[in-house]
């Protein structure tokens, strides 16, 4: 199997989808000829033509609306929002329309759109190229939310999302497009080629949404996270020598409650982690649900390790990002409680 980085894996997923399904169309700002500002759609316009992979005007609401209309007519659009920070002009189309079309029409019309968007910080993008707005979307009934953490999942989940029947907000942790990241900003970049999930089949396969994966087994505590922080968590656990069980959630809506509960019932201690601000972040949902379901198993409060309740700062990015040091401290706090 070839080694692919995450961008190549996403590109390959779209290649497979375009090839297999004539209804697949792909568009976004700079997504056509140029292949996207990160290159995720590179070469696809050339291969499949201007009418299947094309540039869209700088209007994220228009991009979402066009996708909804197309999907209602049976196409399978994959729309790219250039940065997750720029998804908000499309928020109304997503919450009021995309998420509800099936419901309000009692199934007569559907809009199984995939919205891809580079997501998260760690690339010195400042407050408008770093956001992790996933929590907003998990509060919208009718959309699914997915965040892969490696090339293998990225490809398989994108195919599953596009072949599914529901709208999916598909966030791509851009910090790990080119290699996993252990949470130490100055360390040399590692490569996906050395990571087992960097091996990606060429053809069609699916990684179904809604299933989490235990990426590291352990007894001392559970870490529930997704995206870039999966790697930071693994490295922090190694570094701290803490026997943490680490769950890569992958899909946030609907999230895989069974896997979480089983793990927490075993460990009794939990860290939930994300880059987004703390207040009303997705960690709140996880903590609330875990305390409800595992109340009698918990030996310490669910610990929320998150970004701060501030915009994402530019120069002080690493004071904001929940990196290795803060992760280790969190693991120690929950495992040492009582």
């Amino acid at each position: 199997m070839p080694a692919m980085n995450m961008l190549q894996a996403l590109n390959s997923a779209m290649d497979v989808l375009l090839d297999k399904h004539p209804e697949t169309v792909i568009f976004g700002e700079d997504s056509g000829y140029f292949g996207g500002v990160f290159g995720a759609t590179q070469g696809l316009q050339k291969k499949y033509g201007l009418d299947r992979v094309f540039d869209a005007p700088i209007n994220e609401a228009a991009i979402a609306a066009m996708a909804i209309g197309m999907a209602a007519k049976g196409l399978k659009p994959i729309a790219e929002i250039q940065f997750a920070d720029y998804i908000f002009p499309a928020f109304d189309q997503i919450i009021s329309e995309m998420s509800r079309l099936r419901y309000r029409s009692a199934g007569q019309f559907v809009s199984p759109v995939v919205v891809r968007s580079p997501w998260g910080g760690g690339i010195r993008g400042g407050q408008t190229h770093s956001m992790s707005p996933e929590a907003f979307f998990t509060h919208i009934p009718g959309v699914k939310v997915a965040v892969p953490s490696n090339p293998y999942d990225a490809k398989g989940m994108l195919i599953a999302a596009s072949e599914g029947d529901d709208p999916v907000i598909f966030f791509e942790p851009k910090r790990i497009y080119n290699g996993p990241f252990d949470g130490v900003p100055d360390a040399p970049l590692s490569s996906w080629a050395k990571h087992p999930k960097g091996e990606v089949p060429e053809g069609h396969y699916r990684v179904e949404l809604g299933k989490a994966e235990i990426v590291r087994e352990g007894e001392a505590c559970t870490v529930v996270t997704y995206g870039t922080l999966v790697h930071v968590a693994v490295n922090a656990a190694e570094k701290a020598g803490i026997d943490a069980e680490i769950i890569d959630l992958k899909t946030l809506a609907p999230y895989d409650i069974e896997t979480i509960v089983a793990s927490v019932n075993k460990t009794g201690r939990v860290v939930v982690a994300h880059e987004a601000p703390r207040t009303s972040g997705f960690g709140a949902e996880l903590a609330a649900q875990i305390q409800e379901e595992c109340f009698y198993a918990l030996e310490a409060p669910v610990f929320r390790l998150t970004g701060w309740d501030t915009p994402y700062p530019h120069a002080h990015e690493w004071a904001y990002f929940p990196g290795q040091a803060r992760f280790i401290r969190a693991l120690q706090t929950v495992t040492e409680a009582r």
Partner: protein
Amino acid sequence: MSNGQSRFHVPAPPFRPGDAPDFSHLDLQKAGEAKRPDPLTAPAKMTDLAMGLIGVLDHNHQAVGEWDPRLSPEVLREGLSHMVLTRIYDARMLKLQRQGKMSFYMKSLGEEAVAVAAAMALEKSDMVFPSYRQQGILFARGRNIVDMMCHCISNSRDNLKGRQLPVHYTWAEGNFFSISGNLGTQFPQAVGYAMACAYKGEDTIAASWIGDGTTAAPDFHAAMTLASTYRAPVILNVVNNQWAISTYEGIAKGDSPTFASKGLGYGLASLRVDGNDFLAVYAATKWAADRARKGGGATFIELFTYRADAHSTSDDPSRYRPKNEFEVWPLGDPIERLKNHLIGFGEWDEERHEKLEEQMTALVVKSYKEAESHGTLHDGPLSPTHTIFEDVYATEDWRLRRQRQDLGV
């Protein structure tokens, strides 16, 4: 336009309650005067059509000029009949709402031609994305009235399972999209749908309608930009009935010469049409559909009309505009005008008209009895309670399953 120094300006309508409305300032282009270019004409060569007013029926109710679609008396009578039915249905539903049979209602009084004529000019396979005020389309496309009512009273046979407010119809079989309560959102969706028709190589087109107030919405710009850039086979209609809720057209229009002229900056074919002239609406829609089907791209149409009644059952227009505005409104009543046109050449008479009204009233009354036999909002039966958990996703996930169980349904 200026008093020589910058100052804060908020526009206000010419007439408020108590004022005597007078539309003599309107200087409307006369019926028959507008030229009808070939449907594939370049937008830049017909900008006058966005500034004037395309009309066919003159003040003597004669069809005049190049835009006359030359419809047969049968078709005209059909149009008349749909409009009469629309009006009678609306009136009846309003009454029922007042009696507490439904939570809400919205009439289309005075603007029936906009919906009915357009629907008749389109193919039934064309997808329509209406706002809440084009119920006329449903009658023109032959939707079962009992079904419409079952939706409005949210009963066990409501095809939307009680999920939507009354008048927010959906009818996939009739290529009638799901109406959104959010203004403007469907305008760009219609463009996307039309693009997909073209992508699939189909002959089908899409059409959408928004109100004058909604031209201010962000999604208006999304739709117009998409339609222009991708030359989508779509007809984008603005029903300028001159009022949003209590807000007059000037708040959305600002200093625009006409709503139709908003299309010119996008390079779209842009028509301003007498919306109370059945023949003009029919002809303009046909022209635009032709243009779209032949690869000429989108057309933007302003339908100049007047909202003769309240915005909805939630407001009282006498609080914000003169009561008799509609009476002095120069473009009249679309039903009266078409009726008089038909009478004018001997294809209709008062007696037949009365009979038509009676028939339609009877149909509506009878339909409502049947609809009510399937339940009402207050007394039920409604769609079973467990259905509120369906159709959120294609399949129920654990969260919805648990919540449904929690509610015991």
